[in-house]
């Protein structure tokens, strides 16, 4: 790491010699603010629950606040669902499934889903800005990744609604009934799409509980359902705390449970379905290895590593949080990585130049801080680029740990923050051993120019998604989900339909 880059954290670009700045000197410019306008979003002061096609207050009128993690300002009050509200939503969903949605021909369900996809495309910027305000993720990610994927997801499953017979040859695919869906705060709208699109395509109705720190995009989605004339009760949204999620998944009126979140909560939800006929899919935590071999294209690998762990502040279940680098290239790779880190811009999520936005909540920031402190304490070597953090809001510097041992907490526990732990290996077998040395098994990354080695590694990885010479790629056609304690079932692709159908003989 050169001194100049440390002094000028915003400017990784090197000046050409004829600029008179000295050879290889960092260019001393800073980025002017480029904020995305908030005007496109009309925040209501209070949002209700969405039950049976209507916005309603919670029984007893309880509310909670949704906060902008970048400014700590309260964005809106949101109705806090009570168990009675959830019961009502489940009844509405059951009614809608039996009397309307479940009987609708696939081609008619498809039309609603196509319409939803179109409206999401039309209102894309509004959703992107709201999502960034409520979750803290950078606008360039909500705008270019989350929201386009959301629309694409509805689009893809719309096309399946009238083609289920081709997804399950020789069988008749029937809906399961009412799906209880509980989603996390890291990709609020995208997780909603992953859950709702396949459920509806297959003829189920849903009751969805968004995370309590990020309910707003789901409630704006409720408005889209109404715009699309979706029959009442097909989609119900009940924001609230974790206990409400447990009430929802435990309810006897529910036929299918889908959860994305921590392994800890996943186990509780799994237990809640024990002894019942409820179908269940879980998409839980991860501690992915991103494995760089000595023959990898290092510059490309650096971009992939950065994308793997600093995308969405590292608040990604499949984040490449463990970098396994072959010993022979550790030196140059770490140097390039530190250099690259100095160019990462941390700050206002609504600024179009921001790479790393705000941490979603104070509690999450505390968890990251605590784990990072444990890393230092246990003897790993910490590196953080010198960059200014905003005065208000919850932010954390991109962090890199070297000299990490497998026994360190930062190598074992899911941090869910912009923190990368670097470990090394000498042989492919050792890489495999270390990569799989975790109870998780969601994703893995492999960097090598040798195709046969990629495929050999793919075979060894106990992980549901393996990225080769890329990382954190998502597509509605591509199944996603984990091995081991990262959960079971797949979302996305043709396999994503399985979770929402009962197969019968023709």
């Amino acid at each position, binding site marked *: 790491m050169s001194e100049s880059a440390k002094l000028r954290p915003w400017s990784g670009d090197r000046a050409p010699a004829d600029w008179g700045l000295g050879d290889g000197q960092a260019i001393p410019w800073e980025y002017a603010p480029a904020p995305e306008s908030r005007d496109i979003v009309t925040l209501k002061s209070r949002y209700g629950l969405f039950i049976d096609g209507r916005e309603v207050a919670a029984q007893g009128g309880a509310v909670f606040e949704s906060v902008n993690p970048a400014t700590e300002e309260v964005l809106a009050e949101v109705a806090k669902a009570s168990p009675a509200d959830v019961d009502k939503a489940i009844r509405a969903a059951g009614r809608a499934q039996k009397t309307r949605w479940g009987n609708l021909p696939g081609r008619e369900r*498809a039309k609603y889903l196509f319409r939803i996809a179109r409206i999401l495309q039309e209102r894309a910027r509004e959703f992107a800005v709201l999502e960034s305000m409520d979750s803290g993720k950078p606008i360039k990610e909500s705008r270019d990744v989350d929201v386009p994927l959301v629309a694409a997801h509805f689009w893809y499953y719309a*096309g399946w609604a009238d*083609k289920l017979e081709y997804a399950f040859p020789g069988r008749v695919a029937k809906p399961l009934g009412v799906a209880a869906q509980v989603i996390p705060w890291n990709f609020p709208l995208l997780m909603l799409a992953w859950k709702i699109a396949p459920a509806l395509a297959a003829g189920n109705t849903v009751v969805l509980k968004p995370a309590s720190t990020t309910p707003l995009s789901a409630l704006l989605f409720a408005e889209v359902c109404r715009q699309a004339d979706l029959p009442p009760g097909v989609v119900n949204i009940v924001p609230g705390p974790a206990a409400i999620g447990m009430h929802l998944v435990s309810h006897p009126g529910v036929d299918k449970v889908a959860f994305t979140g921590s392994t800890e909560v996943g186990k509780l939800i799994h237990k809640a379905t024990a002894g019942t006929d409820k179908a269940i899919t879980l998409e839980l935590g991860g501690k992915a290895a991103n494995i760089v071999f000595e023959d990898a294209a290092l510059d490309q690998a650096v971009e992939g590593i950065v994308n793997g762990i600093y995308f969405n502040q590292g608040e990604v279940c499949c984040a490449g949080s463990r970098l396994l680098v072959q010993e022979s290239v550790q030196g140059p790779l770490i140097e390039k990585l530190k250099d690259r880190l100095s160019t990462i811009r941390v700050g206002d999520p609504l600024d179009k130049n921001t790479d790393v936005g705000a941490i979603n909540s104070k509690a999450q920031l505390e968890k990251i801080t605590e784990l990072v402190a444990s890393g230092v304490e246990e003897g790993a070597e910490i590196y953080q680029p010198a960059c200014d953090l905003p005065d208000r809001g919850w932010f954390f510097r991109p962090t890199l740990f070297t000299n990490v041992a497998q026994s360190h907490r930062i190598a074992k526990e899911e941090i869910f923050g912009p923190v990368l732990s670097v470990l090394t290996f000498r042989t492919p077998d050792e890489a495999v051993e270390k990569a799989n040395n975790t109870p998780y098994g969601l994703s893995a990354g492999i960097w090598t120019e040798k195709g046969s080695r990629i495929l050999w*590694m793919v075979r060894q990885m106990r992980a549901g998604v393996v990225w080769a010479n890329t990382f954190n790629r998502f597509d509605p056609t591509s199944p996603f989900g984990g091995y081991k304690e990262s959960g079971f079932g797949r979302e996305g692709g*043709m396999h994503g339909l399985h979770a929402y159908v009962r197969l019968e003989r023709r």
Partner: protein
Amino acid sequence: MRKTYKLYIGGEFPRSESGRSYVVSAADGTPLANAVRGSRKDLRDAVRAARKAFPGWAGRTAMNRGQILYRVAELMEGRRDQFVAEVRQAEGLKPDAAANVVARAIDRWVWYAGWADKIAQVLGSSNPVAADYFNFTIPEPSGVVGVVAPEPSSLLGLVSRLAPPLVAGNAVVVLTSESRPLPAITLTEVLATSDVPGGVVNALTGRKKELVPVLANHADVDAIDVWGVPDELRRDAELAAAESVKRVARRPSGTTDARFDWLDDAASERPEWIAAYLEMKTVWHPIGV
């Protein structure tokens, strides 16, 4: 004001280089318009335009192709009344029946559009060969497809035969219904204002007797749909197709063009009609450290 119906080649609406036309009448015999009588040269121009447009269209992402074809349905929706009026005149249908035909044609685009990003998942495969190889099979479009459109069903039949090769990523040259060509030309006007790139669909009106042999003999056409080829021309067309090993797509055996029920979704919505214009590519790659 009367409308001039022209050819559609390479995203433009030329008259025939031959300067010829023929009178098109309504089902009740009333003369409706002079349609262009496309020539051998026009057809060759159309094939050239299709060949040129093919790589770009095949290179789009599947999702993008699906969205573009869905938008064709949206734009047809906007011209629904015009299509109903033209189908009514062409096919001599009652208003309700014509409206139903147009509604089905719109839905058919939507059904096939949805296949764009799914057909590879249904037809492709990962093959567990008995050695250390990763082996997989993916579909790719055949290339330039000649579609001889159904004769009686001027719009719904045409859409049902046009959408499958398009969604697969092929470029198409269509010979429209000879006796009822006008709805097809209006459809090309929709295509021209949609996001379907120029040259991906080319349409010629004219005499099938004159044009089918040219299409079947053209060495740069990879596949031919003989659905709307008159019975007396079909064998010769298929003999000519064999000369350049064209894939030949036929009507299901036992059906006739005259009596095929295009309103029957189960009969007209078939992924195998897409597969007819796909090549399967199998890839072997060693696995080893």
